[in-house]
Every structure is written in structure tokens, then in C-alpha cells.
């Protein structure tokens, strides 16, 4: 690696692309952004009038109790009551005191009455909230406790009249989780203002976003029973959304620049210059990575210092780092495999959808289920909400993404060469090239299965997720087939790539060595995951983790020696034997490789089936 050249390429990447955008385009973009910000600011400040502003005309006298709600609701224009005006169609509603005097003929008049009722309800609720005697306004207090799915902790609570702990017998003063401010009880003093605010105090700790979410999802703390709605993780959704959107913009630009190097052989001259492939790829990636991280940092700090979130700092930023890398790596790898902009579009859409789903959906349920930890974005949301993040949580959420990003960058870099970049080479051949370029010696046969393990885990989990819904008599054998197929391909494809590219000589000795090394490498990687799972007790709560442990642990009461055989020697023997079988076929060509692969799968399936049958019995 040459940092100076790497940075030079990064600088060039920025200036080159900046040179491709003319000043007029920049000016139009700047004006557009400013306009959007102005509109957003206006909307946020409440300066924007609603679409229904002044939509209905209501005739009501100042002495009528309805005058105040009608005049405070911008949807209504208050006029002097007049039957003639109604007949002319100049008024939708005509009140005499609180009695509606006109018949509702038109749809607009009916809609006006419906809107007016809502307006009066809202006005009444507001009046009651402002009442000094909150107990009288809201005589019934209900405490809602929402539990996580696994019953781990209480997460959301809304209280009613928190200040009534003494005023009305103190029925909920101690248990009102939402009534933090009023839990001390003011013994019936005029703390109505405090009491009215207490309902939202539990959310208020998390900043304004939570308050916004509560408002939009009906999480009000006082009102009618109809106002009580199940909680929706609005805050998590907004936060996750804020962090995922910039990624999608960055990868569009990144994928495009990577593919443009390949069109018309533009990147050929960089390949012939005294710069390593690593420096070129890293240099071209660096600006996009820094750009993504810069935006993320700005968002994090903006949320924190504007008071919109209670937390947010280095942990949130560090947690996004592997995600940014994963987005870029997947796009880079896809851009290396794609042979045209048409294929690149398919790749970027696939990357966007799948990685957004992976990162975004779990993060929405940060407060609901510990499975959310499979996404680094969950850590971000937790940190922004000022929740505790343990080292184990951080590692579990970020290490898989980081490793996957490294694997994808490595595989893609294998294709960053003349014969893969500038030809219409078939994708299966590119896959073999990406593997064979990682082979330096026979020991590479041991390294590659370890490197590919994140892909193996993802493929197996995807297979399990797809098949688990089937009846158990069908799903278990099918899952075993999927596991066997994925693992045997992972153990042998690089060996076949090594033989077909001539990096391994086809001698029997080499074949046996690389087969045994490949099997051993896979075994070591598999056990590494097991150790990681066992060392992190928190992971046992996570269903995916439990799924990964199935078949890797022995039942209780089994002697240690037997456990060692079952956990270590038998799997090692299995993986080395099957990998060697595949290697023996791979050295002779594609057809014999496929035959040998099927044979290896049969052996592996028989082993797994026996183990599963034994465990089940």
C-alpha cells in the first residue's frame, strides 16, 4: 500500500467528478436544495397553512359556546349566523347557540359538520388539559405497560393523571411510569400544569422526535379511551431512515464511477501505472466512504445538538462505519461483476433493497425485539436514544457487516484487472476469477473457506428462513440439503478455480493437500463462530444465534471426551473428506468436479441426517 498514491487517486476521483458537473448544474442544484429547505422549514415552523384552511364557513354568534372552537380552527371561517347565507351556499353550518339550524343537504355541509365535531372534541380536550383540577377533568387514570416480545423490559408507558396520587386517593402515583414529574405527588396542590405535561415526560427524555412520534401515533396521555393506541416505533423509524438514505445516494454515484472505469477501457492506464490494485480501489472508494461518514456525522451531531435526540456520539458514528463499508463493498463487487450499465442498475437496485432491508427493518424494532441487533443501525438508534450499548451488542451488530464488506471488497478486487474489467466475460467465469486471484499458494485453500464464511452463514440463514414455514417432515430434509449444498460449494469452488486457472498443479499430492486444507479451513471457521456464540451469552436470546447453535452443541450429560469427538473430530473428518472428494473431481475438469461435488454432498447429507436423527431421538 502506498498512502501517497492512494490519496492522490482519491483527490483525482473528487476533482475528476467535480469537473464533470458544470457550474450551471451546481447552481440549479443549490437553488433546489435551498428551496426544499425553505419549504421544509416553513412546514416545520407551522407557518404553512393547511390545505383545508378556510375551507368551511360557519355561522355562529360570539355568545355561542361554539364560537371559540370554530374561531380557533383554521379550517373554519366564522361568520354571523344567517339562514339566507346557507340558502345561497355561502355558509355550510348555521348555529343558534349550540343548535344546528340548517339541514345538511350537500356533501360539503356534512363534511363541515364532521370536521366541526372533531374540532369541538379537540377544543374540549385542550380545555380539560388546561383545567386546574386535572382529577376532575380526567377522573379515570390508566397506566399502560408495554412489554417487549420476550418479556425483557418495559419500554413504553403512558400515564394519566400523575398528579392525582394524593388528590384522588393516590391510585397510581407510585406505579405511573409515565407520571414521572408528578409521582412525588403534590397533595392536591394546583400543579395542573405539571400534571398535564407529565404524560409525555417519558418520551420527552428522548427528545422532540419522540414527541412528534407520540403526537402522530396517538400516544397522547390524556383523552378518551379511543386515543389509546398500540405503540409504533416511530422514533426508531425516523432515525433509521435518516441514516439509511444518504447511503443510497452515495452508492449510486460510487457504482457509476466504478463501472465508468470499465467502459471504453478508461481504467486500463491506471492498471499499467506503478500503482497497486489495492491503492486504485481504495483511492477511488475513499471519497465516497468519507462523504458518507461526513454526512452521517453531521446528522448525528445535528440531532444531538439540536436537542432532537437525547444521545448520539462516537458509538453511533462508529456503528454506521461498517454499514457504509458494506454498502460500498456490495456496490463495488456488483460493479465488477456487471457487464453494462443495465446490469449495474440491477445490481444497485438489488444492493439498495437488500441492504436497506437488512439495516433498516431491524432498526425500526430496536425497542421491540433483541433480533434487531443483527443490524448496525440498531446500535445507532440505541445510542441516539441514549440507551446503553454493550461491547457484545456492538460486536454482534457490526462484526458480520465488517467482515462481509471485507470479503466483498476482496472478491471484487480480484476482478480489478484487464481481462475481467474490459471483457464481456461470463459471470460464472468472473466468480472463478475472483476466487483464483486470491490463491497464492496451497495455503490459500485453507484461507478462502474462512474468508467465505460470512457468505455461507447468510446463504444458510436465507435458506432456513425460506424453508422453515414448510411442514417439519419436508423442511428439515430440505434445510439439510441447503446447508450441505452451501457448505460443500464453499469448500470446493475455490479449489476448482485454482485448478482451472492453473494456480494449483493437477498432481494427486497437491489435490489431497488442498482438499484437506480446504476442509480444515472450513472447520476452523465454523468453530470460530461457535466460540463467538458461546462467549457471548447475550446472543443466546437471539433466534438466529440459536439456529446457528443447533447441531453444534451436544445434549447435557454427554461425557466430555465424547463431546470432543462429536464437536471436533467428527466434523473435522467430515469436512476434510468431503473437500478432498470434491478436489479430486475438480482437478480433472468441470464435469468431474460436478460429479465429485454431488458425491461430497451425499456424504455430508448422510452425516448431518444421522446427527440430527440422533439428537432428535
Amino acid at each position: 500500500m502506498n498512502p501517497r498514491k492512494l490519496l492522490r487517486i482519491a483527490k483525482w476521483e473528487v476533482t475528476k467528478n467535480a469537473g464533470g458537473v458544470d457550474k450551471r448544474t451546481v447552481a440549479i442544484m443549490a437553488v433546489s436544495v435551498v428551496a426544499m429547505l425553505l419549504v421544509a422549514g416553513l412546514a416545520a415552523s407551522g407557518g404553512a397553512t393547511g390545505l383545508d384552511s378556510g375551507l368551511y364557513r360557519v355561522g355562529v354568534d360570539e355568545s355561542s359556546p361554539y364560537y371559540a372552537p370554530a374561531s380557533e380552527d383554521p379550517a373554519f371561517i366564522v361568520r354571523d349566523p344567517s339562514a339566507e347565507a346557507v340558502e345561497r351556499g355561502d355558509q355550510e353550518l348555521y348555529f343558534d347557540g349550540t343548535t344546528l339550524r340548517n339541514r345538511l343537504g350537500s356533501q360539503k355541509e356534512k363534511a363541515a359538520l364532521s370536521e366541526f365535531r372533531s374540532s369541538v372534541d379537540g377544543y374540549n380536550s385542550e380545555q380539560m388539559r388546561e383545567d386546574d383540577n386535572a382529577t376532575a377533568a380526567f377522573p379515570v387514570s390508566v397506566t399502560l405497560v408495554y412489554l417487549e416480545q420476550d418479556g425483557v423490559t418495559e419500554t413504553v408507558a403512558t400515564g394519566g393523571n400523575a398528579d392525582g396520587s394524593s388528590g384522588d386517593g393516590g391510585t397510581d402515583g407510585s406505579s405511573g411510569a409515565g407520571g414521572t414529574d408528578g409521582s412525588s405527588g403534590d397533595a392536591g396542590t394546583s400543579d395542573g400544569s405539571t400534571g398535564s405535561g407529565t404524560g409525555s415526560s417519558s418520551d420527552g427524555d428522548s427528545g422532540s422526535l419522540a414527541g412528534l412520534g407520540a403526537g402522530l401515533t396517538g400516544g397522547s396521555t390524556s383523552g378518551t379511551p379511543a386515543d389509546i393506541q398500540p405503540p409504533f416505533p416511530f422514533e426508531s423509524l425516523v432515525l433509521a431512515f435518516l441514516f439509511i438514505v444518504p447511503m443510497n445516494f452515495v452508492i449510486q454515484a460510487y457504482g457509476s464511477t466504478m463501472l465508468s472505469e470499465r467502459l471504453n477501457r478508461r481504467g486500463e492506464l491506471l492498471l499499467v501505472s506503478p500503482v497497486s490494485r489495492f491503492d486504485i480501489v481504495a483511492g477511488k472508494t475513499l471519497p465516497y466512504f468519507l462523504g458518507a461518514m461526513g454526512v452521517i456525522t453531521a446528522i448525528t451531531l445535528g440531532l444531538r445538538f439540536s436537542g432532537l435526540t437525547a444521545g448520539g456520539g462516537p458509538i453511533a458514528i462508529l456503528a454506521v462505519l461498517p454499514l457504509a463499508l458494506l454498502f460500498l463493498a456490495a456496490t463495488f463487487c456488483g460493479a465488477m461483476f456487471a457487464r453494462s450499465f443495465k446490469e449495474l442498475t440491477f445490481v444497485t437496485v438489488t444492493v439498495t433493497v437488500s441492504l436497506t432491508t437488512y439495516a433498516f427493518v431491524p432498526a425500526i424494532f430496536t425497542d421491540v425485539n433483541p433480533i434487531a441487533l443483527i443490524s448496525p443501525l440498531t446500535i445507532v438508534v440505541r445510542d441516539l436514544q441514549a440507551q446503553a450499548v454493550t461491547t457484545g451488542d456492538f460486536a454482534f451488530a457490526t462484526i458480520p457487516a465488517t467482515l462481509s464488506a471485507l470479503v466483498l471488497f476482496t472478491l471484487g478486487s480480484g476482478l480489478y484487472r484487464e481481462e475481467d474489467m474490459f471483457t464481456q466475460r461470463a459471470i460464472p467465469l468472473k466468480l472463478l476469477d475472483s476466487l483464483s486471484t486470491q490463491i497464492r499458494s496451497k495455503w490459500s485453500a485453507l484461507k478462502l473457506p474462512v474468508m467465505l464464511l460470512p457468505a455461507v452463514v447468510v446463504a444458510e440463514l436465507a435458506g432456513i428462513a425460506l424453508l422453515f414455514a414448510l411442514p417439519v417432515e419436508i423442511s428439515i430434509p430440505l434445510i439439510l440439503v441447503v446447508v450441505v449444498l452451501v457448505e460443500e460449494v464453499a469448500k470446493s469452488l475455490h479449489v476448482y478455480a485454482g485448478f482451472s486457472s492453473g494456480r494449483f498443479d493437477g498432481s494427486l499430492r497437491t489435490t489431497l493437500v488442498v482438499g484437506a486444507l480446504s476442509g480444515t479451513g472450513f472447520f476452523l471457521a465454523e468453530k470460530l463462530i461457535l466460540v463467538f456464540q458461546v462467549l457471548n451469552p447475550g446472543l443466546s436470546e437471539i433466534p438466529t444465534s440459536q439456529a446457528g447453535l443447533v447441531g453444534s452443541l451436544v445434549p447435557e450429560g454427554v461425557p466430555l471426551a465424547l463431546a470432543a469427538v462429536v464437536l471436533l473430530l467428527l466434523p473435522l473428518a467430515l469436512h476434510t473428506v468431503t473437500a478432498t472428494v470434491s478436489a479430486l473431481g475438480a482437478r480433472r475438469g468441470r464435469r468431474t468436479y460436478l460429479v465429485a461435488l454431488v458425491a461430497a454432498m451425499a456424504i455430508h447429507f448422510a452425516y448431518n441426517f444421522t446427527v440430527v436423527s440422533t439428537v432428535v431421538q
Partner: protein
Amino acid sequence: MIEARDLRKEYGDFVAVEGSTFSVEQGEVFGVIGPNGAGKTTTLKMLSGLLEPTGGEVSVAGYDVTDTAMRQQLGFLPEESPLYEEMTPTSYLRFFADLYDVPESVATERMHETLDELDLEHRDRKLGDMSKGMKRKVAIARSLINDPDVLVYDEPASGLDPLTTNYVIEFTEQLAEEGKTIVFSAHNLYHVETICDRVAIMNEGQIVARGDLEELQAEYGEREYYVYTTVEVPDAVQENGHWRRVVDSMDGVDAIREAAAEAGGDVIDIRTEESSLEEVFLNVAESETPGTRYVEEA
């Protein structure tokens, strides 16, 4: 300066280059010619380190071509050199000068010197707005920005108008005179004949003939003797008051001389005509056809 031994390049089961062995001395201009698909570009790309040979060995300036340090000694000009069209010639050349560790002052001087020699104006215009000939000149300047000892030029005048072509060929000739080692490929054999010291003729992935022009002419070309006599000799035709007969050997010339003497006349002129490189190339292409180019599956 360049040593290639038994070079081989396979693409799947297709053998693009097989058994290519040649060497190029310092200061020599070595031409590689052959029909389309003969393996010329693949060979040049293996020399420049762009393609990894499937078999054989190749070194440039004492370095293995897989060694990044070799690239410091090399200037490569591909057949098509698409540039970064958003950049200007100067920013483009400065960028590559940086990658080749050329000090800024040296790079500036060298860049302007080369562009002056190539007569390229509008150096701050974007490359995307330039003509093909102008872009080619920038590409040539880029290949010289590191002042390399070895130049590998693949069809340097491809697709250019005759005026620019002559300019580029003359410039390449000038580089050869300055002592650069040049490996040069071109379809226009007149250019090769003009500037190359030695030539390799490739066909279907193999070097089927190589040597300097005289050696190639001797082996694959034809030499014809136009013998003019004062009297009629067998098979002669009358031309401008004399008799002319064409033979392909000095023995034939001697036979005409004897026949003219017997008829009371004499040989008054002998003119020699040799095959051009183009004719040699056509003869080689017709006579030397290697076998299959596909690898048999085990």
C-alpha cells in the same frame, strides 16, 4: 531490454498466444505485425504487465512484468486510449506524473516540451471537446511523462487522418533515434518497414517468422531480376528498343548473358526488385498457418 520466452496466454479453452519467444535490445525498434486476432495486442499487454501470462516468462528492463517497479520503466500506449474527458490535458498529465513519482517541476517541463513537439494547443480545453488526433497526442504525451526506457505502442496511428498519422509516425521515429526501446504494432506495414529494426510476424497466436527485413525477404520474399539485352533471347519481350526478360536468380541472369552473347549481343542493364514487407507478410500468412488454438479438456 525485453526478454520473452515461450509466452502463452489462454482465455478459457482459447489459446490467444502460444510459444512466443523473442528479445528486444536496448534502443531497438521491434515491430509486431499480423492479421486481426493474431495475438499482437495480447502479446503487447503481457509485455506491459496488463495481462498475466498463462505460461512462459517475460521481463522488461530486468524486472518481471508482474513487478510494479517495472511499470516505472515503461510507457504503454494502447490501441484505443479513452481519456478522462472531464479533465484537461494538463490536469490529466499531471495526475499521471504524480502516479509515476515525477517531481512537479520536471513534470511541468516535460509535459509542455512533449506537447510542443506534438504541436498540441488548447491545453486547458477539456479532453472530451478534443478531436481524436488531439486526444491521441495527449495519450502519447502521457506515455512519455515518466521518461520511460521502454515504449510499447499498440497501433499508435490507428484511426487517425493521414496528416496526423505521419506526425505520429515521425514522432515515434524520433523517439527511436533518442534511444528508446520500442515495441510497435501496426496494420500499416509501410510504417513498420519505415521505422522497425526487426519484425515478428504473428498468425493465429504464434510468431511464425521474425528477423530484420532482409532476413525476412530472403526467407519469405521474392527477388526478381529485370535483364535488358541488345538482342532477342528466349522468353524476352521487346521494350523501348531493347529486349527484357525477368528471372528470379543469378543463375538465370548468367543464362541470359550467355544466350545474348551467342546471339551476338550483350546484356546492357540489370535491375533488381525485392518484395515489400507487405508481400512478405502475405507470403508468410499464406504459408505458415499454425494448428488448432483450443485447449483440449482433460
